[in-house]
């Protein structure tokens, strides 16, 4: 069948037309081989724009379409669907980018127009080689896995479970609640964190559709959207959760102590412990690295006193495999360790705390039972709160951690409230960022409570005469200040979890420059990732306060539910194909395939692709010495023709690679006359 190509050049308002002569490009395309129709239009993605393509396909009998507009990552699907509506196979479209990769980045209009012509020519060349391809529909397994049971993971799990779908919720700590469980109050309403989070935690443990697995980690994930297989490692708890009543007798008698991670190193915990009395599940866990019974086979007192015989020192780690349709990552954040910032003396001076430590000081079940006191047991007479420690700092994290201004204000209020209104509180800030609902009002309220705000990040903290002296500059007054205080709180940055890179690898998602998981689109795809069927929830995508994390988690849950509710998903047909007539059976591709999607047919002595497992990465096609393996929609002919178009080779010149030197010279002279021959 003769090729009839339609070319559509989009102005994108002035986004493209401001630099590129779109009319000129469309005119140029008219002269290209097999082009039947070539038009430019203000907004190709608009309804009239799409209608124009549909009408042309029907009236002119177009069998190939080229759209040159924005990035195919934005609108390729739009135009594929327009083609499909007109009865044309969507893979007979080539969508090329003349906006992000041309008009927006090129200074000179003439150069931009020339580049756009090359891009359109390449698209016309390539689309001539396109073939009809058909997507496959595959079943989506109904269960969903949620990884991480902080407030975001809890919210996502509850949302999904409510719909009747089963959620496998995996948490690496012994109990759920994440960082929120460590907090005392929440800004700006001053709700008690436990009062609003424990009902959710209890709901998780009581929800029949949630399979809660604490003290567990996802070790391996394989499969694809709709059909993921996840291996979960259950670490040994040394306590039989089915028998344990959570009475806590063991916690009192255990003689071995360690610094409590949950109390941020301010208090001690036993070798057998649980994070807080409200912990969900309330089954304790034995720290196998310090327990005397497990390490040295001594002690064993917990087993003696346990009334239900729940202690089992012989417990081993186990693995369990789950088949799920989609995965929601809610792995949360870490707070930065300020020890490397030696100027602030964390770890050197007793009375320098991180924000999370201060949170534990405030908490009624924390090491001081909620009293804000110094290590010597006295109340501080003055406190300095230093904002942006590690945030908005090119040496650590360039981004704003978004929560510190607000929790600093909360601390201001709590200090005034708990220690007394005569306590001096100094905030050293860069800018106050109080952007949320009710946040600015809270800022005003705290200002009226008599808190001092000093604009400027302190240079250092020194100890003089038993006081900590914060040395810095008040940039509004333009003078140096030295503020003696009893206690310093560092508002440390929220950063990506330490094992984020490893987790990203297990789930096949990418990390952004800031280390957090990378979303599909910063504005329009904040919960999906480049991996279909893996969604994000909460602060693993970037710093978030509680309302934002909860909203984000509900978004992630909705995406997972959309997949599960429909029950099927269409899989791209751009897989590999090995031409049985060409394959010589060298088997190299079999070893190269990262998905084990290539089998060797012993009878025919050729390699065969299993399309259900192939993801179209092209490892085989990039190597295949005989050219038998080809990725559909990215095959050799298509790429070769695209190269020719981009290099502006005129039609009629040899396209094949094994051309003679003389032909190369000819080709080269044709492209750029005047260059040395």
């Amino acid at each position: 069948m003769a090729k009839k190509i339609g070319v559509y050049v989009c102005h994108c308002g002035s986004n493209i037309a401001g630099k590129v002569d779109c009319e000129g490009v469309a005119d140029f395309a008219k002269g290209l081989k097999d082009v039947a129709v070539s038009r430019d239009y203000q907004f190709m993605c608009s309804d009239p724009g799409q209608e124009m393509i549909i009408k042309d396909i029907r009236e002119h009998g177009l069998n190939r379409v080229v759209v040159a507009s924005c990035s195919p990552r934005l609108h390729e699907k739009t135009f594929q669907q327009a083609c499909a509506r007109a009865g044309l196979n969507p893979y007979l479209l080539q969508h090329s980018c003349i906006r992000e990769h041309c008009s927006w980045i090129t200074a000179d209009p003439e150069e931009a127009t020339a580049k756009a012509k090359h891009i359109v020519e390449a698209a016309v060349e390539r689309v001539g080689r396109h073939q009809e391809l058909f997507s496959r529909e595959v079943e989506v397994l109904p269960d969903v896995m949620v990884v991480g049971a902080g407030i975001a993971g809890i919210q996502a799990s509850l949302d999904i479970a409510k719909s009747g779908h089963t959620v496998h919720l995996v948490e690496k700590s012994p109990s759920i609640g994440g960082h929120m469980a460590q907090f005392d109050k929440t800004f700006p309403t001053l709700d008690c964190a436990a009062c609003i989070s424990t009902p959710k935690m209890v709901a998780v443990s009581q929800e029949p559709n949630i399979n809660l697995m604490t003290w567990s980690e996802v070790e391996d994930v394989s499969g694809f959207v709709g059909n993921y297989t996840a291996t979960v490692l259950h670490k040994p708890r040394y306590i039989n959760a089915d028998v344990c009543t959570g009475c806590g007798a063991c916690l009192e008698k255990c003689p071995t102590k360690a610094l409590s991670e949950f109390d941020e190193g301010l208090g001690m915990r036993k070798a057998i412990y649980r994070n807080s009395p409200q912990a969900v599940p309330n089954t304790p866990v034995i720290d196998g690295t310090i327990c005397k019974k497990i390490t040295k086979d001594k002690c064993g007192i917990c087993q003696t006193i346990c009334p239900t015989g729940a202690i089992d020192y012989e417990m081993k780690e186990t693995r369990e495999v789950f088949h799920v349709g989609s995965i929601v990552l809610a792995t949360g954040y870490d707070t930065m360790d300020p020890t490397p910032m030696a100027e602030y003396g964390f770890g050197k001076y007793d009375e320098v705390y991180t924000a999370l430590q201060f949170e534990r000081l405030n908490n009624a079940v924390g090491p001081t039972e909620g009293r804000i006191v110094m290590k010597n047991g006295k109340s501080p007479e003055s406190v300095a709160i230093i904002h942006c420690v590690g945030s908005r700092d090119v040496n650590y994290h360039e981004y704003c951690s978004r929560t510190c201004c607000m929790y600093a204000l909360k601390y201001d209020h709590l200090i005034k409230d708990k220690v007394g209104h005569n306590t001096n509180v100094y905030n050293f800030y860069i800018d106050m960022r109080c952007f949320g609902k009710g946040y600015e009002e809270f800022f005003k309220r705290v200002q009226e409570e008599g808190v001092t705000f000093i604009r400027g990040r302190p240079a250092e903290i020194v100890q003089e005469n038993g006081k900590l002296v914060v040395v810095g500059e008040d940039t509004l007054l333009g003078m140096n200040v030295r503020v003696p205080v009893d206690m310093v709180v560092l508002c440390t940055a929220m950063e990506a979890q330490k094992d984020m890179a490893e987790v990203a690898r297990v789930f096949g998602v990418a990390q952004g420059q800031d280390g957090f998981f990378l979303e599909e689109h910063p504005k329009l795809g904040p919960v999906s990732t480049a991996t279909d069927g893996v969604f994000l929830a909460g602060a693993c995508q970037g710093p978030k306060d509680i309302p934002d994390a909860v909203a984000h988690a509900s978004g992630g849950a909705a995406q997972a539910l959309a997949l599960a509710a429909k029950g099927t998903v269409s899989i791209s047909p751009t897989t590999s194909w090995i031409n049985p007539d060409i394959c010589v059976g060298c088997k190299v591709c079999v070893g190269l395939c990262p998905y084990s999607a290539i089998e060797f047919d012993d009878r025919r002595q050729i390699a065969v692709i299993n399309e259900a497992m192939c993801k179209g990465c092209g490892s085989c096609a990039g190597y295949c010495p005989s050219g038998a393996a080809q990725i559909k929609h990215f095959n050799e002919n298509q790429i070769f023709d695209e190269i020719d178009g981009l290099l502006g080779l005129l039609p009629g010149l040899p396209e094949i690679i094994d051309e003679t030197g003389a032909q190369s010279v000819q080709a080269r002279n044709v492209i750029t006359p005047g260059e040395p021959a």
Partner: protein
Amino acid sequence: MNNEFEPTILAFVCNWCTYTAADLAGTSRMVQQPNLRLVRMMCTGMVDPKYIVKSLLSGADGVLVSGCHPGDCHYINGNYKARRRVKLLNEILPQFGIEKERVKLTWVGASEGNEFAATVNNFINEIRELGPMEACSMAVV
């Protein structure tokens, strides 16, 4: 003559990292010299060395291959395969009179728009410095 030389460069970039970074560089209006044209691949692992050779023979003065950072490959390890292939190609090209600097492999992650723009501009400058491809016109290949 060399002062007027404007190189033509092709870039084979992976859809998930460098192509996305190119989009981001565009959205952020990071001006780049117009000499480079992108070929979208799904993964650098599918870049057959013959695409690179073909580009050089057909008039490109330089070829950039750019994908996800090591360990970040959307397809597990395609970028490692690209690294091996480009390394081998770099060893073979000088035997045909083609400077190995004409073929470059870089890693640009999806969020690194600024890194992409800098990589493009630097590579164009490097090739401009190197001058036009003599090997083709000398009919060595």
